[in-house]
């Protein structure tokens, strides 16, 4: 067995428990401003998650990021509801329509609308040129009927958050974030792209966490040969440069696979490479915890291994796992985005942020339709929000640390 001091046990340590000798110390650790109920008594009896929440709440930026993440997650769950048009539907006369700003007040009353646009092809340059026509007011209403979609894959509906009365037509265009070269609505494509990109990140991390906890748990709890093998495997995987491996694996995916199959394959590829760090952390935790008094006590009381692991040990570091997982999601999202951007990940007709950016990586988009790069902003916002949230969670994960 390796000496405990060599292990990566994370930023904080349960040994802090023993150092905190008085209630005052504990409150000090959690910090001031706990609110009316959280006095010393409350802290004394509060479960771990409550302590974590009290600590997390103080990290205002993380709190805000949490809200952002929830909004993005809502979009990811109900992209059809937020979309205004069929994301695949091209309109031959409506390519490269610029952003139509949504305005809320018309003549002082709350009456959301967008100005109409009219376009024509420049006979000299052959470019579709669009001008805003302030004479044309296209009213926008909430909860309107539009194209049909399925909520969570089974409830068919046609209600959308936003839309124009009779849907977008040639006389009545409605492109919140402009349209692409095939006249497809970028706003709607972004909504659907959010679902794909975010879910790939989440599913990949879930698989990673499962693998990480399983392998880390076996390694840390059993030790010996199992530990040796798993650790060498982790070292092997970590010594391989991740990006070329991802590229090689995704490039090897059969090209005739359906969009769904490719999607799951890519998720799996990201997860299979991504679990190692988590496994290390979990192993470290196990090594520390299994010497702890409460584990020894459980052992002496005759609890079986499964009970000891899942009942006693895992709950004490589950907050760490959540924090680590949150931090892993943006990495997965970025990975999917750049794989798709390079044309190795998802491919059209699938829509993901990477696919959207890949479709915008050409001269005409950059020169004539810069709004097609907006999915990049969505990636930045999401990744930042998840990182800050993960950071906040990690700090809060051990409420006893200073």
């Amino acid at each position, binding site marked *: 067995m390796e000496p405990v001091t060599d292990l990566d046990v994370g930023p904080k340590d349960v040994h802090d428990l023993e150092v905190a000798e008085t209630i005052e110390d504990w409150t000090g650790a959690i910090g001031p401003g706990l609110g009316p109920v959280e006095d010393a008594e409350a802290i004394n009896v509060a479960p771990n998650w409550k302590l974590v929440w009290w600590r997390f709440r103080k990290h205002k930026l993380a709190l805000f990021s949490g809200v952002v993440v929830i909004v993005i997650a809502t979009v990811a769950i109900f992209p059809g509801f937020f979309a205004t048009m069929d994301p695949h539907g091209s309109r031959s006369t409506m390519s490269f329509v610029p952003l139509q700003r949504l305005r809320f007040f018309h003549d002082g009353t709350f009456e959301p609308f967008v100005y109409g646009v009219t376009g024509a092809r420049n006979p000299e340059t052959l470019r579709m040129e669009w001008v805003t026509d302030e004479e044309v007011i296209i009213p926008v209403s909430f909860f309107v009927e539009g194209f049909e979609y399925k909520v969570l894959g089974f409830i068919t509906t046609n209600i959308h958050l936003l839309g124009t009365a009779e849907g977008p037509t040639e006389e009545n265009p409605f492109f919140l974030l402009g349209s692409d*070269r095939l006249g497809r609505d970028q706003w709607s494509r972004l909504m659907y792209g959010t679902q794909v990109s975010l879910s790939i990140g989440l599913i990949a991390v879930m698989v990673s966490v499962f693998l990480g906890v399983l392998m880390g748990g076996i390694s840390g709890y059993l030790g010996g040969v199992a530990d040796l093998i798993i650790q060498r495997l982790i070292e092997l995987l970590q010594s391989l440069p991740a990006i070329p491996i991802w590229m090689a694996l995704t490039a090897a995916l059969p*090209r005739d696979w359906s969009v769904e199959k490719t999607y799951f394959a890519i998720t799996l590829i990201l997860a299979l490479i991504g679990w190692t760090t988590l496994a290390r952390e979990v192993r470290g935790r196990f090594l520390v915890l299994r010497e702890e008094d409460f584990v020894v006590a459980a052992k002496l009381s005759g609890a079986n291994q499964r009970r000891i692991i899942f009942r006693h040990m895992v709950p004490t570091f589950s907050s760490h796992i959540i924090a680590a997982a949150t931090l892993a999601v943006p990495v997965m999202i970025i990975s999917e985005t750049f794989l798709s951007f390079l*044309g190795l990940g998802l491919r059209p007709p699938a829509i993901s942020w990477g696919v959207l950016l890949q479709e915008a990586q050409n*001269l005409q988009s950059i020169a004539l339709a810069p709004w097609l790069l907006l999915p990049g902003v969505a990636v930045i916002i999401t990744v930042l929000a998840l990182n800050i949230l993960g950071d906040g969670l990690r700090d809060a994960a051990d409420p006893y640390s200073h």
Partner: protein
Amino acid sequence: MNRKPSSFRTLALVGVLTLILALVLAACGAPAAPAAEEAAPAAEEAAPAAEEAAPAAEEAAPAVETKYKEAPMLAEMVAAGELPNVDERLPEEPLVEEVAESIGQYGGTLRRAFLGPSDHNNYVRVVYDALVRFSPDGSEVIPHIAKGWESNDDFSEWTVYLRPGAKWSDGEPLTADDVMFWYNDILLNEELSPSPSGWMVNADGSTATVEKIDDYTVKWTFGQPNTAFLLDLANKDGADLSIGNLAYAPAHYLKQFHPAYADADALQALVDEAGFETWVELFTLKALPQTNADRPTTAAWVPDNSTVADQVFVLKRNPYYVGVDTEGNQLPYIDEVRFTFFADKEALNLAAVSGELDFQARHINMSNYPVLKENEDKGGYHVVTWPTFGGSDAVIMFNQTYENDPAVGELLRNKDFRVALSYAMDREAIKELAFLGLGEARQGVPAPNHPYYPGDEYAYKYTENDPDQANALLDGIGMTERDGDGFRLMPNGEPLDIEIQVIPAFGNWTDVGQLVVEQWADVGVKAHVEIRERALGFQMRDTNELMTEIWNEDTTGFPFSGQPKMDPRSDPALTFGPLFRKWYQTNGAEGVEPPDEIKKLVEIIDEGKVSGRDRQIELAQELFKIWADNIWEIGTVGLTPMIQGVVVVNNDLYNVPDTAGNDWPLRTPGDTRPETYYFAQ
């Protein structure tokens, strides 16, 4: 909306008209006498031009008074005794080349871009180094390295006259022996050419004969009349990195790599040194200037210690080039052609927009036309368009011998299925979104006013967007059952998913494919676009793995020569029917026997190769009627400059014509005489 298609179309028509004229002259009866006569006056012309040239000679006064003038850099070399003077370097009767605008000035570097070793035809198109060439408008075959030709009355014997005094780029004389070396030691060498190039094979399967009449005269004798001879000869320029595309070669240089001449041990040493297994590999590499900078050529520019495998592929002027302008100035005007490697096509387009390329049409994406136009002043260039006349700039070809899934193969062979898919397409939408509103919806048949045009009925056959009829046809062939997503199942109840291969080569074909997928989905037919790298895509054509493929219709003007898309025997293999090709190659022993309509195509093509002009026109029209009616290829939009027709030209570069025939057999821009381009100094 005010659009521009009409003017594009006019250009296309002009090109087509000239083409017709040319073909009339070149392909059929006419060439024999008139073409040869033509060569003669051209030569006579050279003399007076040279006289005029004398007074104008002011640059780089040579020690000896010469009849012709030359570039200052060559004059210096002559003065230093490194080169013979220009009169000695030129043949007795130089090729006199017309200029598009004005007599040029010497000097400068023509900056171009290429995409690496697989882009070897970029070089071929710039130098267009063949015995005879297509004229700038593509309308006729004109003398080039060869001085002229003659045929007997039934076109079975062709005599080609070389230019006495013409030289290879290393100064060695170019004679009939160089043609005979190609014939005896390349074409007839079974190791180098396991099966001789199709143009040299007689109807009975024997190989045509070539004989030397005198040092500057060579005679081809075919077993039957051959009216496609000149058209074929105009494409024997080493294209496609193939020694099968040669008709003469520098014997004095290549003998060292050929076992018939070289010492066996010395040759083996060379083979070992180069890391090859056999001398064939070594010879093939050494025989083409694209891959071997030491190989002498007869082009206006020769590789300067670099090849297509280099980051920068530089060509320098050939001091022995046979061409002069009408005032007796030896061509080319431009000192150097510099191809810069770009790994990415968008980066190449960006370089064009910022004015870093002097002359480029290849790899310029037509979708970038608006960007290019808007930056003309800033980049110091202007954009010229050379629309194609092939008929359709994105056609979906259906594999008629697909076997990987017999049920799918059955559908691809079903005419009703193809007609339904054609009716399901909204070509106006494709035109707006992928063609900038240019061109017209049509099938892949020649342009109107081309003599081969089969008529409006066929050009526009099945091109209406008629989903109802498409649905009715699909129901009619038993595709009535649908899956959960509303896609039709095949008659055998299995799901269908048609793969459309796109090689992102020259056009905006990926977008065309995506739009087609969407439009087919509206009638319940599932399809997807598969983007493949070029070499892999070509290989999969050959191995019969493709269902359908998008390419352009680039050979409709030349159904009786070269490798037309209408001929299942064409090489390299087409998606059309790789197993038909095998059937023909093996005389029916292997592969799949084609149905009667396709056999008919082959019969028509074979008859056209031996027929006079009037009969050829009749035959071609019949060919394209069958072609459009059977819809083995579904055309989308045609007569646009999508395929290498958006030309970025430096404002200081002159003699680039405003209109030009644009097609692969013409080697555009090679047909526009790049050696006469010049920079205003």
